[in-house]
């Protein structure tokens, strides 16, 4: 399958459901969409009646061929685009989309290295696409996910990630509040947590980190201190609005 040169396409909302109190899954049907690799993103453009335009990038939670894409969007309180996509976009409404974008922060089934995924908050979205791609091709490459989130209520795709049949094991880590009976207290990921819960340098993994800038900086620094080569770490940071 060939990925076409990208221009602005029009997508309409064909299904949606809440993921958390602040986030929703939106599935858009996009005629002309060429399919996408796991981990790619899309730019979404909104145009106000006065002509003002705002563009934001979102990771795609789905992967593979087809004209449907799933985005998992977190509402940023002072965002220009995300509150509209989470609260106001109705079934049948359209938005402009440019993509699929990016070739660096992707996982392709032909990759042979073991894979460690490390997500901070809604940074889990491209990894959902990677776990789906991993399962759909029946990959035997080891892949595991460490998912750091504030509280259990903030989890995206918990049921899917926790399925006993999942081909990717998810380790949950809570920074703000833990579920009842959880053995560890809430707190940010430490170097020791990363040493215990991620693939070690000896396994020569490719490690992907996605989350807010501070999270990505802290985790990548810690991994380098544990002996991972900087070029074996791929990062995707997301900003504020």
């Amino acid at each position, binding site marked *: *399958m*060939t*990925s076409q*040169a*990208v*221009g602005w396409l029009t997508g309409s909302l064909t299904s949606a459901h809440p993921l958390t109190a602040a986030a929703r899954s939106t599935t858009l049907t996009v005629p002309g969409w*060429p*399919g*996408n*690799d796991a981990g790619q*993103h899309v*730019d979404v453009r909104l145009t106000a009646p006065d002509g003002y335009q705002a*563009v934001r*990038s979102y990771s795609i939670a789905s992967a*593979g*061929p087809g004209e449907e894409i799933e985005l998992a969007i977190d509402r940023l309180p002072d965002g220009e685009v995300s509150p509209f996509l989470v609260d106001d976009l109705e079934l049948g409404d359209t938005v402009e989309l*440019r*993509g*699929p*974008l*990016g*070739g*660096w*922060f992707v996982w*392709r089934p032909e990759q042979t290295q073991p894979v460690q995924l490390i997500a901070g908050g809604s940074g889990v979205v491209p990894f959902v696409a990677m776990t789906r791609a991993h399962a759909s091709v029946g990959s035997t490459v080891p892949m595991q996910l460490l998912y750091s989130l504030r509280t259990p209520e903030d989890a995206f795709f918990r049921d899917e990630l926790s399925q006993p049949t999942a081909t990717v094991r998810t380790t949950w880590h809570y920074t703000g509040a833990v579920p009842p009976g959880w053995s560890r207290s809430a707190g940010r990921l430490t170097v020791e947590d990363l040493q215990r819960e991620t693939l070690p340098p000896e396994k020569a993994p490719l490690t992907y980190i996605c989350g*807010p*800038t*501070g999270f990505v900086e802290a985790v990548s620094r810690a991994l380098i201190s544990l002996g991972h080569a900087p070029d074996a770490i*791929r*990062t*995707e*940071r*997301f*900003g*504020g609005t």
Partner: protein
Amino acid sequence: MDHLDGNVLAGPTTDLFAFEPTTAQGQCRSCADIAALGQAMVYGQPMGFVARCRNCDNVLLVVVEHAGQKSLNMRGLRWLRVADPVEHNRI
């Protein structure tokens, strides 16, 4: 201001490059570090994007969008090496 990664350049540069830019390798003119553009640190919005070297902070590339025009300055790159699209342009 928080910085992003070179990944975010993929959208704004689609009409500037005929190749996928985030996997293209480039060399920093200042410190000679070689990295994919996806590894650069990008300071973005609202006027455009400034991509800086991950190693020495040198400005590699600037994309500015203004009044319906887009300009690209690549003063900080010694070279850019692009993979064969036949190998990479697929999913």
